[in-house]
């Protein structure tokens, strides 16, 4: 018995060693654009539903985006270009868009793609029985119609600046979905799209495998396939990356700075760095005292050392946020009040507001009431928790007592954010390509469940946000949002803290990875591996 076990263990070990040696015999090879090899990507969570507009999680979208196309897409420089549409034309008044569709596109099952699919997609998204979070984009549509198989026309009731980009929504196949209940459709498990990669297999909670679409309208991808491996634990993910079982994964700032500097790691991976489309902020509840006073909010903003947070939480891998856009996008206006670290100014502002430490307990008070508040954030986000801890220390030094409460997500949103039962919170917003901020800062979104949880109201801003939605011309629009950023900076309903860098690494054998404002993932179908370096 003992001997048998020993033999088994030995076998296992030997087999392990054998596997290992294959990987290490990589040679320098030519840079030819060969077909073949697979990309193995690590992901924290499994996808939920591969009909893209039924899912709202990023895991589902990163898979579905390779399988489906929209009529338009954002290119690497974040300009809107045609995707399934060969060309498009927006009328001067912005009330009508005409899409000319590509003629050589086929669904993965071989059926030709036509304008009927576009009309169908519109209908199914706006169908009240479809549980999708995306129908809001199409509220202002007057009608859609298709004069012929390759023309698709949308008409709007009023000008809508986000109209064109909303047609980046994935177009789904009419012939497979018509007359069926979309919530029970097989496509959620076995999607059929028009994209560069075809669905092959999905092992729940383990991996999703895609293969190259030979008939892709921009030509077959070089890679044979992409495999998404679900690894829920960050440290396990990093171990898998280090031992070469994963080709692409995001790093934490600590991993990026401290754990990937070894020569063996650098020999194997290329590290990339670009500003993520997200910012983190400290938001106040303006309904609660003393946050209804601009002075107090500003005092807190001055007391926070954003650079310290960037250094401590992101190890320098981020930039300070000054408004709801990141510095490298068109809409950014850096010429606003920036709230550099200035504790003296903070103390002065507090004093002006009547807050002083009279009883010598280290906490400032007004009319005998000490300045205490609780900041909420959600569980599971290490960076936000650390940010809170750093802010806590800084506020304490100017005499503000801040408590931290970390809540599980569902409770946090339902019981606290939506019901406005909080003093302040630390959260993040993603930065969408379209600059519209109506949902977040317009006063009409103050009521229950609205996203203006600051309960912030500024009449000039309200008016600008409404106007900004209706102007199609980019330059005219920018003027409006420049002013919006100035107002936000001055009113300070929230302290914009930082925009982190996204820190992906990709195995060196993949060529054609070009970091652009859109990141690196926009052109995976153009990545290739020279024959000699191919692994799978």
């Amino acid at each position, binding site marked *: 018995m003992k001997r048998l076990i020993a033999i088994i263990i030995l076998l296992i070990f030997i087999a392990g060693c054998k596997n290992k040696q294959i990987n290490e015999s990589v040679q320098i090879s030519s840079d030819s654009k060969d077909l073949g090899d697979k990309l193995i990507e690590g992901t924290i969570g499994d996808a939920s539903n591969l009909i893209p507009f039924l899912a709202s999680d990023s895991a589902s979208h990163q898979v579905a985006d390779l399988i489906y196309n929209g009529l338009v897409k954002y290119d690497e420089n974040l300009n809107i270009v045609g995707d399934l549409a060969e060309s498009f034309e927006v009328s001067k008044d912005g009330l009508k868009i005409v899409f000319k569709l590509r003629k050589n596109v086929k669904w993965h099952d071989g059926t030709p793609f036509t304008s009927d699919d576009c009309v169908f997609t519109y209908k199914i998204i706006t169908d009240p029985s479809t549980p999708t979070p995306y129908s809001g984009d199409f509220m202002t549509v007057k009608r859609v119609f298709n004069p012929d198989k390759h023309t698709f026309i949308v008409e709007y009731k009023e000008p809508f600046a986000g109209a064109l980009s909303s047609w980046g929504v994935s177009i789904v196949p009419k012939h497979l979905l018509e007359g069926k209940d979309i919530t029970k459709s097989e496509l959620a498990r076995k999607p059929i799209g028009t994209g560069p990669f075809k669905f092959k297999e999905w092992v729940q909670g383990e991996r999703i495998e895609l293969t190259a679409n030979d008939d892709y309208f921009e030509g077959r991808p070089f890679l044979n396939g992409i495999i998404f491996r679900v*690894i829920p634990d960050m440290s396990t993910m990093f171990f898998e990356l280090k031992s070469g079982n994963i080709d692409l994964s995001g790093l934490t700032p600590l991993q990026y700075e401290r754990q990937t500097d070894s020569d063996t790691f650098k020999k194997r991976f290329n590290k990339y760095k670009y500003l993520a489309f997200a910012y983190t902020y400290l938001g106040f509840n303006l309904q609660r005292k003393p946050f209804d006073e601009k002075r107090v909010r500003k005092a807190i903003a001055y007391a926070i050392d954003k650079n310290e947070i960037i250094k401590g939480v992101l190890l320098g891998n981020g930039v300070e946020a000054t408004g709801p856009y990141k510095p490298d996008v068109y809409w950014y206006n850096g010429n606003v009040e920036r709230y550099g670290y200035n504790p003296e100014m903070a103390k002065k502002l507090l004093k002006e507001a009547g807050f002083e430490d009279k009883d010598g307990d280290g906490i400032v008070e007004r009319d005998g009431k000490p300045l205490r508040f609780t900041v909420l954030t959600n569980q599971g986000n290490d960076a936000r928790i650390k940010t809170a801890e750093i802010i806590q220390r800084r506020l304490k030094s100017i005499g503000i007592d801040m408590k931290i409460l970390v809540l599980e*997500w569902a409770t946090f949103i339902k019981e606290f954010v939506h019901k406005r039962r909080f003093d302040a919170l630390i959260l993040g917003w993603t930065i*969408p390509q379209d600059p519209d901020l109506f949902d977040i800062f317009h006063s009409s979104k103050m009521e229950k469940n609205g996203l203006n949880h600051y309960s912030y109201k500024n009449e000039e801003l309200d008016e600008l946000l409404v106007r900004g939605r209706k102007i199609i011309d980019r330059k005219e629009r920018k003027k409006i949002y420049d002013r919006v950023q100035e107002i936000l900076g001055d009113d300070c309903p929230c302290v914009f803290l930082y925009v982190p860098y996204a820190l992906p690494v990709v195995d060196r054998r993949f060529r054609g990875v070009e970091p652009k404002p859109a990141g690196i993932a926009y052109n995976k179908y153009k990545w290739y591996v020279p024959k000699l370096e191919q692994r799978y």
Partner: protein
Amino acid sequence: MGRYLLKRIWGMVISFFGITIISFFIINLAPGSPTDLQTDLNPRITPEIIEKLRKHYDLDKPVHVRYIKWLKNLSTLDFGTSLSPDGRKVIDKIKERLPVTVLINLLAMIIIIIVSIPLGLYISINKGKWKERVITVLSFLFYSIPSFWLAILLILLFGIYFHILPISGLKSINYASMNSFEKILDLARHLVTPLIVATLGGIASFSRYVASNFDEALKQDYVTLARIKGVPEGVVIRKHALRNALIPVITILGLSVPGLIGGSVIFETIFAIPGMGQLFFQSVMGRDYPVIMGILVLSSVLTLLGNLLADIGYGLADPRIRYR
């Protein structure tokens, strides 16, 4: 016996309803709803969309109405559909996770039994000697280590430094192209580290349990009698003490039946194994009522059955116990 069984089964039915009612109401009273994960903080969501989603999932109806509806469906073995965006049948979601979890738990249980019984005997026989002390301290040590810490240490050791075992998951990427021998080997290699983590604590506590039972058995009158009669020590241990010492083992086995389908979130998260633990955790966090209820029904039925089997087995093995 027949009356006893009937009484027990009646009790089980009552317990079953108690469990489902309590859990259904707990879940439904908890703040948050399954639509949250889809709708929260998404700028595109309007109140109408939220209402639409709530209607779609029947969330606009009162709890007791939903419970009765759920019970009705259950009577036809219909566990309903998941409320997460995938909208799949609960039974399908459980079915695809079950084999992995059962495989690992079953293997772990077998290993624990195979190792613990001889180890327990060894401890008991060597009681008071240094060997016993070393084993005791070691077993307490393994029992006291937080499992995720042990898991990561082992992954680092076997996977990163020695490079002899895979790090996570159950199959290699090229699993599909292997022959059946390679497939078994591949699976075995992936299972080594998880099984070590899954069994160490169990071995530690179970072997001590066996040891104390054995101690107890050696003190019984019939063992003393056998010794007085001059039966050789080896025979005393094997024939008289051992058999009786193992009776409580049956109880424990019965009680571990529900454990077979219960996974551990922590374990599965670290080893990237898609099992029941992850499913359950995700469902609780996502307020996916039908899936939570499905898993609870399954595990409570197994628990109740396991209790019954343990009691019956106990009675069969030890005639001194009567059913009342």
